[in-house]
């Protein structure tokens, strides 16, 4: 059942702590469907997702000039040869799906602020090992830490063709992202994302409600867990550490 695959990406250690910040509606959806959501790369907010850093683009231009026709007949025009790399990548952006986690021992104040834009939110705490171990899917799931690059200077550090989807600009370094990735079929119906079934009991170590959330917010989260048959996890619901009182 476990299908996460290691290639030459940057795998965290299995005990690495990971967090996912979602709003209450997404949390309820996750409990109701017992699934996590993989978003299509081309639909992500950062339009640089799945694009080439400058050195890689320059390299690929050079690669195009080093394309070698083997038995390819002349009726297949030079256009195909020239566009091969770019077309493959644009097509991939429409059928590569990702699910993103923050890796860190503690909560991230920055990600709480980001999550709060969408309304009342929670953070699910797990480990990388639990995350990949709880995914039940017949398709191949890739995983890696995201590498943060200077897109003007740094080439894609992975040689695998999907490696570009584990790269972001340095402006996002604070996200310390661990990412799961799935590739859909070219002929598959275009989808905004893919739901992947997951073992929630194995995945969830703790649910943390947003800083400054009122007490009834905790009650809502606990009752959602009970409502969806996960009552044992209700005791794992906590207030944010950011709400602790300072000592003067």
């Amino acid at each position, binding site marked *: 059942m476990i299908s996460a695959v290691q290639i030459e990406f940057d795998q965290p250690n299995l005990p690495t702590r990971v967090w996912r910040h979602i709003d209450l509606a997404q949390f309820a959806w996750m409990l109701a469907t017992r699934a996590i959501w993989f978003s299509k790369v081309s639909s992500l907010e950062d339009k640089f997702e799945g694009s080439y850093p400058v050195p890689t683009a320059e390299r690929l231009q050079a690669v*195009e000039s*080093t394309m*070698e026709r083997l038995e390819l007949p002349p009726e*297949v025009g030079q256009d195909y040869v020239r566009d091969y790399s770019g077309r493959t990548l644009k*097509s991939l952006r429409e059928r590569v799906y990702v699910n993103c986690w923050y890796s860190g021992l503690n909560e991230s104040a920055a990600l709480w602020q980001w999550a709060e834009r969408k309304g009342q939110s929670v953070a699910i705490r797990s480990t990388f090992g639990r995350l990949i171990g709880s995914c039940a899917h017949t398709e191949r799931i890739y995983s890696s830490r995201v590498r943060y690059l200077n897109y003007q200077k740094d080439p894609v550090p992975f040689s695998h063709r999907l490696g570009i989807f584990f790269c972001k600009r340095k402006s996002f370094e604070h996200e310390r992202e661990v990412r799961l990735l799935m590739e859909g079929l070219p002929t598959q119906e275009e989808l905004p994302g893919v739901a992947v079934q997951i073992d929630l009991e194995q995945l969830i170590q703790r649910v943390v409600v947003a800083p400054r959330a009122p007490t009834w917010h905790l009650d809502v989260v606990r009752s959602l867990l009970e409502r969806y048959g996960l009552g044992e996890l209700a005791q794992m619901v906590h207030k944010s550490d950011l709400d602790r009182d300072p000592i003067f």
Partner: protein
Amino acid sequence: MVDPAPLHFGLVSHPVKYGAGGAVEVDYAHSVEEGRRYPVILHAGNLHEEAGTCRIRRMANGAFEVFDFQSGGLELQFGWDLADSKFYGSFVADEDGRATLEEVLLVVPQQ
């Protein structure tokens, strides 16, 4: 449904070294991922479009064969010579001497 057919070596993109300005000269071995569905790009005259997916297997003699081709609603058009159509692989080579299949071209000559 299309009968299994040979996969011809279509083209390969060689890796380059940064700043070296040229291709890395390696003797590469062609490889495919068995079980994976590869996109099939149709080339027929001026028509170039994704036409479905297929799987690839290595035969006992070392050659590759296209099988389980599933077209995404591909419609045959007048003037296409299917009897002479062939599958070609587009490979990407790396510095380690692997040429990995990226996609498959279905080239349909015009009569």
